[in-house]
């Protein structure tokens, strides 16, 4: 299994006259099997940090390394399902695996995310919610040791998002992979995460850590008044009303 250690991570993008500093001096430890959320307003560098941790973008400064054995298997989910529209749902899962993977193995995963019987459909024939379920299956079918998720439920209606969050938590409980989850939704963050790392913009940096897991054991209820109060506190924090105690 794998944890993540990031030290002094920074990122700047060269512009015409000057450099834009997107991230500055980010230190981060993610334990093996931990579920962390990166939370912050738009433009605070959450996705940039996620992409650097996931190896999709290089950091301008600092280092990222994985603890545990070697280079971990990774799974990704993006804001949109990002399925290949010309492949059937089943072939979209096969795309991230050995191409000789038998259809039965793929179908069992489709069944687990509620898409049993939809293997032969093309993405355009499914609703966005169903497409995002297929993306969940694609991310988990590789049996990742680290799962990187970039606001995967933000484009869905709230009812679908609610269901998918619970399904994600169920699957995470089974596999216990390390999860880095980006969101701008405080309630989603405190509901899902062991730890929430709050980020601020200009330049992007981590400003506060909220250890949700210490106060809210799993399974959690989304209707839990204390959890809701915590999320309201996080909203205050994002709006610059001081630190949570």
């Amino acid at each position, binding site marked *: 299994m794998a944890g993540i250690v990031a030290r002094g991570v920074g990122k700047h993008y060269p512009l015409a006259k000057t450099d834009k500093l997107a991230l500055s001096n980010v230190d981060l430890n993610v334990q093996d099997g931990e579920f962390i959320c990166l939370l912050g307003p738009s433009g605070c560098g959450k996705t940039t940090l996620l992409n650097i941790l996931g190896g999709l973008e290089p950091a301008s400064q600092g280092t990222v390394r994985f603890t545990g054995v070697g280079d971990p298997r990774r799974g*990704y989910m993006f804001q949109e399902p*990002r399925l290949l529209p010309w492949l059937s749902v089943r072939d979209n899962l096969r*795309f991230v695996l050995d191409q000789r993977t038998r259809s039965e193995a793929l179908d069992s995963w489709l069944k687990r995310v509620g898409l049993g019987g939809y293997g032969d459909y093309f993405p355009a024939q499914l609703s966005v919610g169903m497409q995002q379920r297929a993306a969940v299956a694609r991310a988990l079918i590789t049996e990742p040791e680290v799962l990187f998720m970039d606001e995967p439920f933000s484009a869905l209606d709230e009812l679908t998002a609610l269901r998918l969050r619970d399904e994600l938590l169920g699957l995470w409980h089974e596999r216990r992979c390390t999860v880095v989850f980006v969101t701008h939704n405080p309630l989603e963050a405190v509901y899902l995460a062991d730890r929430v790392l709050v980020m601020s913009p200009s330049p992007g940096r981590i400003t506060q850590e909220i250890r949700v897991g210490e106060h809210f054991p799993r399974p959690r209820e989304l209707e839990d008044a204390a959890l809701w109060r915590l999320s309201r506190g996080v909203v205050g924090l994002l709006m610059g009303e001081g630190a949570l105690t």
Partner: protein
Amino acid sequence: MIDRDAQLEYPRRAEGRFPGLLTGGSLRLLSLLSLLGAWVVGAALLSPNVLPGPLETLAFCWRELRSGELTFHLAVTMRRVLIAFGLAMVLGTVLGALVGAFKPLDKLLGAWLVFGLTLPRIVLFVMAYLIFGLNDTAAVAALTLTVLPTVIVQLREGTKALDPKLLELSRAYRRPPLLVWRQVVFPQLLPFVVGTARGALSLAWKMVVLAELLGRTSGVGYQIAFYFQMFNMTGILAYGLAMMLVLAIIDVSFSALTERAFRWRRPLRF
């Protein structure tokens, strides 16, 4: 009490004033008949030496077909077109993808492409016949070069339009390059390839006549030149008609192939 079934009755879509008569098929037939009608009227108004009628032309076609002349010349022309088209598509797809992917190469070949696109085709044919002699190599080479710039430009644009998010997905899951090319890049280029192929084939089919007319002793273009010298408009129309028919058959086959290749674009209606 509400009658739920009654509520589910949606008003039927108005189907025009003559429902059943003006369907897609009958409109297409009407279009074809009006074209034929215009030909008949034109032939009645003009001298048969200028515009012979459809029956006369078809009779000429039949005679040429029975003598084997029509099939021979059509086959020769088609062979030239297919070789040139194949060469232009393969070279154009590879070059277009490279030019689209590498900006410096795009800039380096920019002037060549503009030259290729704007050069009058007849100049190209004359130059090819002067360089290679009056033979098939010259005709096919000139025909290939006629089509090539269009294919390169189309595929260049297709490559530039590749979705970076899908390439990022491939990178994220560390997919091997061959698989990425086969399942991510090529399907995105396919609409450009198919669209370009239709245009390129049609262009090659029209240009080959010019090449044959200028410097070959066989093919439909040669036959048209021959009948022009004989002031035989029926012969010209008969060979023109045969070429149009072949091109139409090819175009319909392309449509069927396109439909099959892009069936993933068609959402189901629940």
